[in-house]
C-alpha cells in the first residue's frame, strides 16, 4: 500500500489522492511516504557518512581544495596591505591547521573507529526522515492557513496527509552525491515536489489549481517581500549613518 501511495504521488493519480483524502488514516499513510523517502535518502547519505568517518582523508582533501580556492579568490580582490597580510597568514597556517583537524579526527576512541562510523551513519539514516518532516510541516501549515483564507474546505489532517506526498519526488535526492548533476537532480525533485503540493492542496481543500497555487506560494512570497523590505530599510539606515558620519 505504501509503494502504491508513493507511485500515485509521483504520477499525481487523482483517484488515489481522492481516496486518501477521505481515509481516516490519511496522516499515517502520508507520513509513511515521508518515512520511506527519508530512509532511502538517509541510507545513501548514511553509508557515505560512515565511510567518511572511518577515513576522513578524502573529505579533508576536498575541504582543503575548497579552502585554497576561496583564498585564491580573496587574494584577487584584496586591495589593502592588511587584507593581503591576512591572506598570507592563513596560507602559512593552513597546513598545520588541517593536520590538527586530521589528528583530532583520528584520536583513539573506546569503541573501534568502525563502530563509531557505523553509528554516525545510522544517525544520518534515522535523522533524514525527521528532517524532511520538519521542512514539510512548515510548508503544510502555512499552505493550510492560506488555503482556508482562500475558501478551502479541508482539515489539517487531510492537508498534512496529502501534502506529505510532495516529499515523494525527493527520493531523487538519493542521487545528490553525483558530481555536477547531483544538484540539478535535487532542483528537479524540489520543483516536482512543489507541483505535487499544489495538486495535493487542490484535492485536500477542493480548490481550483489557481487558488491552490496561490495558497502554496502566498506565505513564501510574503516572506521574500518582507525580507527585501527589511534589507532596504537596513540599507537606508547604513547609508544614513555613513553620510551622517561623513
Amino acid at each position, binding site marked *: 500500500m505504501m509503494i502504491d501511495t508513493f507511485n500515485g504521488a509521483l504520477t499525481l493519480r487523482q483517484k488515489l489522492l481522492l481516496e486518501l483524502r477521505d481515509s481516516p*488514516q490519511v496522516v499515517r499513510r502520508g507520513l509513511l511516504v515521508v518515512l520511506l523517502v527519508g530512509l532511502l535518502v538517509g541510507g545513501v547519505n548514511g553509508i557515505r557518512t560512515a565511510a567518511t568517518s572511518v577515513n576522513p582523508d578524502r573529505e579533508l582533501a576536498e575541504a582543503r581544495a575548497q579552502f585554497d580556492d576561496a583564498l585564491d579568490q580573496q587574494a584577487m580582490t584584496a586591495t589593502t596591505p592588511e587584507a593581503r597580510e591576512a591572506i598570507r597568514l592563513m596560507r602559512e597556517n593552513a597546513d598545520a591547521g588541517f593536520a590538527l583537524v586530521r589528528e*583530532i579526527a583520528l584520536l583513539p*576512541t573506546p569503541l573501534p573507529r568502525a563502530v563509531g562510523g557505523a553509528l554516525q551513519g545510522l544517525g544520518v539514516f534515522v535523522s533524514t526522515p525527521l528532517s524532511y518532516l520538519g521542512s514539510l510541516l512548515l510548508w503544510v501549515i502555512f499552505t493550510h492557513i492560506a488555503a482556508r483564507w482562500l475558501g478551502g474546505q479541508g482539515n489539517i489532517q487531510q492537508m498534512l496527509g496529502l501534502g506529505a506526498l510532495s516529499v515523494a519526488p525527493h527520493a531523487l535526492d538519493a542521487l545528490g552525491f553525483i558530481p555536477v548533476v547531483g544538484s540539478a537532480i535535487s532542483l528537479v525533485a524540489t520543483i516536482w515536489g512543489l507541483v505535487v503540493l499544489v495538486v495535493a492542496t487542490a484535492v485536500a481543500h477542493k480548490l481550483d489549481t489557481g487558488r491552490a497555487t496561490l495558497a502554496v506560494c502566498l506565505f513564501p512570497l510574503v516572506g521574500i517581500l518582507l525580507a527585501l523590505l527589511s534589507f532596504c530599510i537596513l540599507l537606508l539606515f547604513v547609508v544614513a549613518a555613513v553620510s551622517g558620519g561623513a
Partner: protein
Amino acid sequence: MQALSDLFRLGIGGLFLETPVFREQREASNRMQRGFLLVLLVGVLVGLAAFVGQLLTLAITPSVDTIFQTLRNGLTAMPWYRDLSQLNPAFPAQFDQAFAQAETTLRTLNSGLLGGLAGVILTPLVYLITWLIFGAFAHVVARMLGGQGSFSQTLGCTALASGVNLLALVQIVPAAQVAGVTLLGLLANYVAIREAHQLQPWRAFWATLLGPLVLVLLFTCAICLLFFSLGNILSNLGLGA
C-alpha cells in the same frame, strides 16, 4: 500488558492526528488517568533513549582530556603562535589563560553522564509540567472562545499530543537529529483542543496558539528586562560606555 498496549495505541493515534482516537479519549471515563500515564511513559522512554544515546556517544568519542591536549599542542605548534610569541613575550601566558578559560566553559557545558542520568528523571517531569500548564491555559482560552469541553477532557485529549514525542526516541542513536517535533506537537494539540471542545477550526487555532505566543512574549520581555537591569548595574559600577 493490555493497558500498556492501549497506551501505545493512544500515543500512535496522537502522533498521526487520528480524530477517532481523540474522540474516544474525550469520551473515556478514565481519560485523565490514561493521559497522565501516557505523558509519563513517553517521557520516561525519551529520557532513557537520550541517556543510552549519550552513553554510545561517549563510547565513540575520544576522551575530552586527549582532545584538549591535542588541540593545545597543535595550536602552539602553528606558525601564528610562534610569530606572536616572538612579537610579544607575554603572549604565551595570555594564550594559556584564554585556553584554560575556554576549556573550563566547554567542560561545564558538556554535562556528560550525570546530565544524561538527570535527563531520565527530568524529561518525564518536564513533559508532565508542560502538559499541565499548556492544557490549563488552552482550556481557559478555549472556554472563552465558546468551547464546551471540561478541564479533564482538555487534559485527556492534549495528553495524546505527547505521542508526537515518540519521534524523539531516535536520540538512542548517537548523532541523530530530532526535527519537526514542536510543530507536529502544536498540530496535535490543535486537533486535541478542536475535538475536546468541539470548536470551529479558527477558534481552536487561537486557543492552541495563544498560550505559546504569550509565553514567547513573556520570555522576550524577561530577556529585555534582564539586559536592561544588567546595563543599569554596569553603568552604576562605572563599567558602562
